[in-house]
């Protein structure tokens, strides 16, 4: 007879809609009405899309609204980043939750380039990680392209562990050699320990 496995508490999914405030930013679930010309501009901007190896494309607001509507906001979350002072929408997170393994895969794009280099990702992802880890996630995953140096900086500065280098993992958008990708991971216990250490 197999020994009984200890019962784990049921996975609590993040409440819907999600709303998190940090000192400078607001994170909230995006809805089709958030589709905007600004966001369409990000999708068409090679400087924004290039680092995530996605070809820029022309998208209408209606197409963008339909894209937003495809997120179930339960296991596939689309979360907007807004500047609290102005209400300006500046970027978004895509989070894929795996309830079986209790992992969360995070991707982020800061579409408004005037906010690059302002540590938006460090501040907002810390709050998002707090939220995810409080709601059942046990490990967070990130997989930036090796040459997406700003994204790599953010993983390093936030204390994520480099777990592997995936050689030639992706085909490049515009030809050339295949692209390497990093696999970063962050366990809940490690995050909590880092938060405790950083607390005043």
């Amino acid at each position, binding site marked *: 007879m197999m020994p009984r496995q200890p019962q784990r508490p049921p996975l609590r999914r993040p409440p819907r809609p999600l709303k998190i405030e940090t000192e400078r930013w607001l994170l909230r679930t995006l809805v089709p009405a958030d589709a905007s010309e600004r966001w369409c501009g990000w999708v068409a901007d090679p400087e924004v899309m290039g680092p995530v190896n996605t070809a820029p494309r022309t998208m209408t607001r209606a197409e963008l609204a339909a894209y937003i509507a495809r997120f179930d906001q339960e296991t596939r979350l689309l979360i907007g980043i807004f500047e609290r002072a102005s209400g300006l929408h500046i970027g978004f997170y895509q989070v894929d939750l795996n309830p079986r393994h209790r992992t969360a895969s995070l991707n982020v794009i800061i579409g408004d380039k005037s906010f690059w280099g302002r*540590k938006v990702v460090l501040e907002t992802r810390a709050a998002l990680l707090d939220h995810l880890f409080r709601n059942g996630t046990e490990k967070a995953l990130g997989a930036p392209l090796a040459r997406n140096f700003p994204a790599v*900086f953010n993983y390093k500065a936030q204390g994520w562990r480099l777990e592997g280098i995936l050689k030639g993992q992706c085909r490049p958008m515009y030809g050339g050699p295949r692209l390497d990708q990093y696999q970063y991971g962050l366990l809940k216990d490690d995050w909590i320990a880092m938060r405790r250490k950083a607390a005043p």
Partner: protein
Amino acid sequence: MSLSDAKALLAEALQVAPATLGDEARLGAVEAWDSLAHMRLILAIEEKRGAPLDAETAAGIESLADIARVLAL
């Protein structure tokens, strides 16, 4: 390539005076070392070396000492 050469390179990427950087400068501990500065730094190292860094080497750059080590390769 000396530590002071590496410091000059880092200072230029961070857009600060070299004198403001200690020998123990590292990512996460220097306010000006942000995501864009990190990109400028890696590109400057590649320019100095005349070739792109491989993923393993680039992943290891987290401090002034790392920069000096990579520039000396």
